Each structure stands twice: as C-alpha cells, then as structure tokens.
C-alpha cells in the first residue's frame, strides 16, 4: 500500500539558511499534518491543512510557513534556521481527520 512520502530524507543546512521540506500524502487523503521531533522527545504538532486550507496551528515558529497545494502535497518552509531547529520533521496524512499515518521523516541538521 502507498504510504506518505517525504523528501528529502536528510538535510544539512547552515545557521540562517532556508530549508524546504516536502510531503506527499497517501492517495485520496485530504489532510496533512506536520510534526517536529527533537532528540529523545515526542513529536510536537506544528500545523495542519485540510483541503488546502490551514486547519490548525501548534507551536510553529514565525520563521516557518507551510502550505498545501492543489495536488494535496504540502511544503514546510523554514527560514533563518537556528541550531535548535535540528530535529526530525514528520508529515502525516489522513482522510477527513481520521487516523493519521506518518511518513518516514526528514532529518534536518543545522550546523
């Protein structure tokens, strides 16, 4: 069965640089969620989109923005990167807010 696809899987950036993470949901899923997981931490909700509209917002810094496109894929844009942004970033998708299925994650390292 098709799963959530995230790219890139690994990303290394310098401080103050910009990063873009991409998420391709499971086919026919209309809702996308972004989570950040620091080392040894549980995933923290950042933001979600339903039918291309932002549906909920969590602890997402102002330096981050995200959107969902007409094909339902989503991108998380991160600017002015800080060392503390180093983490695993997970995307999850669901159909109309039902069970969330997670992607493999993007490991972001900020040097």
């Amino acid at each position, binding site marked *: 069965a098709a799963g959530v696809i995230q790219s890139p899987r690994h990303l290394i950036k310098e401080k103050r640089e910009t990063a873009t993470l991409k998420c391709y949901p499971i086919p026919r899923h209309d809702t996308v969620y972004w*989570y950040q997981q620091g080392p040894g931490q549980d*995933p923290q*909700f950042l933001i979600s989109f*339903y039918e291309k509209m932002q549906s909920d917002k969590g602890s997402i810094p102002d330096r981050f923005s995200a959107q969902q496109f007409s094909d339902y894929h989503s991108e998380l844009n991160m600017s002015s990167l800080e060392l503390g942004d180093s983490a695993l970033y997970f995307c999850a998708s669901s159909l109309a807010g039902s069970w969330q299925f997670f992607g493999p994650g993007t490991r972001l390292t900020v040097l």
Partner: protein
Amino acid sequence: QKEVEQDPGPLSVPEGAIVSLNCTYSNSAFQYFMWYRQYSRKGPELLMYTYSSGNKEDGRFTAQVDKSSKYISLFIRDSQPSDSATYLCAIPIQGAQKLVFGQGTRLTINP
C-alpha cells in the same frame, strides 16, 4: 500539566515476557486513545486505537482504557526482539486536527 504523561523508561525485558506500557491523561473529555510504535529513525506507526473505555485486542497486543482513572495501557504478550521500539501513546485533540503524544517508552526485548 502536560495533556498526556508517559514514563519514558527505558524498559528492558527478556523475550517472552509480558510487557505493560502506561500513560495518564488530564482531560476526561478525551474519547480516542492511540498507541504508536516507532522504530529507530522511522516514522511513528499506528499500532492500535481504542474508543472510550474497555479493552481491545489484536494478536499479542491489548489496549486498555480506564476512564475513571484517566489511565491507558498497552500490553504485549509473548514479547519478541522485533517488538523493541519506542511506544508512544497519543490522543487526538480538537476534533483530530492534531495528536498530542506522551513522551514515549523505549522498550528493549532481550533474546
């Protein structure tokens, strides 16, 4: 107070043992309770979910909810080395638009 609390462990048991993983939650209005399994460097994988109180069994796994004490449990029977992972309890908040996770319990099953 965090909405969901979980003992991070680590927990190490011999193969074949019965494992008990537990979480407590703060809001008595919560109705759905989930358990995710996360292998190292992978995304969380939905293992089981329960609605309201009671037990739910799936093979060697049993999920239990006690709403009177706001306590949720996951039992693993006949534990196998392949069960070694981090187990996260999770509760959907605000109409399932985001998941709030416990800290995760790192479990190791020793052959």
